[in-house]
């Protein structure tokens, strides 16, 4: 069945010639495939953009960092009773991890209070949706926070429980427009703090998840103000290449410290950048699938259009088929002729659809900055391949029909 290369070229030229002779019809047929491909690529690019954001955020935290908390970091609505009853991780857990786990380089802890955000004030301006937390000095490095101005607090600030604060990028823009924030005094929950440093803007998912509205004070300062703050979020950085080993060490240490019975599951959670990405992909998996299926329906409709037009084309050119058969064309030649014609049609539609889809994705990125949609490279290849295979699939039947024509009957046809 495999035709000679010259025959392929000849068939291709023949196909292009047909397209040229029926410009408008070819354009309409292509249009269906074009719209279908463009929709699929547009939708895929949105998900790719979202995925890229999650990967960026997770990797900004550091690929060697373990995040240890009493709950899973993922989105979950119904916590079980066991989960609700879990006791918080403690500062001592953090010290123990630092001392007893040989694969761990540094550890740090962040402490916070449940309940609504505290308000921050500066020169008559007020911010209600702040994220006020305390952390040990090494925490900034562990979560991949970059300093922009001033300095981070150090162990001495922590030991002296000094009222100093390092502020996030959004706090800077809200309070210190055209002003140097370092050295200024802001009031947080009715207490005065000196701003000693600012953080660079962090990568976030879908615009705003609060990591730029942060007000970070030394761990012990926070404890001084809110002695009842019990929750701890611990991060531990593993030595290079020892991530899984470090996870095991931390896990067995915490199980011992938290008296988890041999047969019981962990009553805490250790997450890594990788596990967070996997979790996100698990959640998104079905959504992506459903959306992709729905958007491929356009392609299906376009494919049906191709099949229809190919059938018409076969009927119209019955005589031509008869002539070709009479002068020695084999079945396979006729089949390939029509298959290639259909594939050329849909392939052209696919290419145009890819261009259109890329434009669409570019427009989305320009209009909705929170959602940096990017066209995934595989979708360009997939778009083209799928478009061509649609031609192959939906062209198959008309082509077979054409090839099975009896040359005598076909020549008879007026």
């Amino acid at each position, binding site marked *: 069945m495999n035709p000679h290369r010259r025959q392929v070229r000849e068939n291709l030229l023949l196909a292009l010639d047909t397209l040229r002779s029926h410009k408008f019809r070819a354009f309409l047929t292509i249009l269906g495939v074009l719209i279908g491909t463009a929709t699929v690529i547009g939708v895929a690019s949105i998900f790719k953009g979202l995925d890229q954001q999650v990967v960026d955020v997770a990797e900004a935290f550091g690929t060697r960092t373990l995040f240890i908390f009493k709950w899973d970091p993922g989105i979950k609505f119904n916590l079980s009773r066991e989960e609700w009853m879990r006791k918080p991780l403690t500062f001592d857990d953090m010290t123990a991890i630092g001392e007893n786990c040989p694969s761990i380089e540094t550890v740090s802890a962040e402490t916070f209070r449940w309940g609504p955000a505290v308000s921050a004030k500066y020169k008559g301006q007020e911010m209600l949706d702040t994220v006020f937390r305390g952390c040990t000095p090494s925490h900034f490095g562990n979560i991949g926070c970059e300093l922009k101005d001033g300095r981070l607090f150090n162990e001495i600030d922590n030991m002296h429980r000094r009222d100093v604060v390092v502020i996030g990028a959004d706090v800077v823009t809200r309070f210190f427009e055209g002003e140097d924030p370092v050295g200024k005094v802001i009031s947080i929950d009715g207490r005065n703090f000196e701003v000693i440093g600012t953080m660079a803007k962090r990568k976030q998912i879908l615009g705003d998840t609060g990591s730029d509205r942060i007000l970070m004070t030394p761990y012990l300062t926070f404890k001084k103000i809110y002695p009842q703050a019990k929750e701890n979020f611990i991060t531990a950085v593993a030595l290079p290449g020892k991530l899984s080993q470090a996870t095991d060490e931390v896990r067995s240490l915490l199980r011992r410290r938290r008296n988890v019975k041999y047969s019981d599951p962990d009553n805490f959670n250790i997450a890594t950048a990788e596990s967070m990405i996997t979790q996100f992909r698990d959640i998104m998996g079905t959504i992506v699938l459903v959306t992709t299926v729905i958007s491929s329906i356009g392609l299906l*409709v376009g494919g049906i259009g191709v099949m229809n037009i190919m059938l018409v084309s076969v009927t119209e050119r019955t005589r031509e088929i008869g002539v070709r058969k009479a002068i020695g064309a084999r079945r396979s030649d006729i089949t390939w002729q029509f298959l290639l014609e259909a594939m050329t049609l849909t392939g052209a539609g696919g290419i145009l659809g890819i261009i259109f889809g890329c434009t669409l994705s570019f427009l989305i990125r320009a209009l909705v900055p929170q959602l940096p949609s990017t066209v995934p490279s595989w979708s360009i290849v997939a778009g083209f391949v799928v478009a061509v295979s649609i031609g192959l699939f939906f062209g198959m039947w008309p082509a077979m029909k054409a090839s099975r024509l009896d040359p005598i009957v076909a020549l008879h046809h007026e």
Partner: protein
Amino acid sequence: MAEVAQTQAFLLRRKTGRQRLFGAWITAREAFWIALEALRSHKLRSILTLLGVVIATTTLISVMSVVNGMNLYIADKIANLGANTFILHQWQWAQGYESWLKARRRNKPIRIEEFEFLKVNLPNYKNIGADAWIWGESDAKYGGKTLYEVGLSGRTPNMIDIGQEKVESGRYFTESDYQHSAMVCFIGRDLVDEFFPSIDPIDKEISVRGANFRVIGVASRIGTTFGESQDKFVHIPLTTLQKLFVARPQLAVSVQAYDPQQMLVLEDEVRALMRARRHVPYQEDDTFGINASDTLMSAWDRLTGSIFAVTIGIVAVFMVVGGIVIMNIMLASVTERTHEIGIRKSLGARRRDILMQFIIEASVMAATGGAIGVLLSFIISWIVDMVFTSSVPTNAVVIGVILSTAVGLFFGIYPASKAARLDPIEALRTEA
């Protein structure tokens, strides 16, 4: 074909007034039958063309149904505050995190005095009740069994007429229970299932938060919302709640009107009374929130409206693809039938007749596809409803059929006008 020609020759002679209208009707009817005939003679091609419209319509209506189903679910389970009822609370619900933070700090909670004040001063309401929730862990115990985290709330006796709960057996508490801070409770189905699977719960004593309450009534099952059971509650008289747990509870006051119009009037009345009582200056915002189901629904719309609109928009594009298929096939059909058009023209068919013939053919094709699509989407919606939620909106049926017909009309215009403009001599010369 001869009949067609006869009809047209007949029509040529009639041109005035109502008869002209009648003539147009005849043409249309004629064209309709020709269209059906054309569909029948090219069965396969018609099926394929229909298939495009069918798939497009099915997808469109199915997506609309899921969206509609989700909206209905929210309206029924979340935004349903009771018939003609609105709730006065410390803040306006579902207004976003920041405004909640502001309202939470600025607004004072609604207190018993304010409830009593409204009860006396509000004119012409059907019912006014109040409830207060106890937050935190309320575990219910009976006969060695424990049910964790039941919703414990104190209510006025008339809340049974306002809220969603219905008495299944026993009774709700009365004015007398309320006045005497009686140690009685009204429980949800989940407690009955847990504690009294085979015995009558009435007059048994259960313990909630360490206090013993006599069960006086059971509510009929409400069901779940997002998988969360709504039947895990214990109602006690508001006064009992004050006596045992909180002396000055924070209330949600439910006001029920006789009809939706009056509800709007009552909302304004409550707003005026509360502002006056709280001495809110003229230019200031309310220091309380008035929540009705429409404000909750509009919050939901704000949250999801644009996403839904975009999804429906994307799916509607498929209709265009379906339309393009029709246009393409009609063009091919015109080319094939050039000879027939030539004959019809030479026998006196006017441009209008030919135009009508092909436009109606395209529309009939699209409308059939649309109708099949509507039927299919009913089946899909029925299946989706079993695992998720979906409800075909009545207007979607109309939209489906009208939209597909319109698509057929629109995409039929170009091929039809092409056919109508054919020169009869040229057309006749074309080989059939």
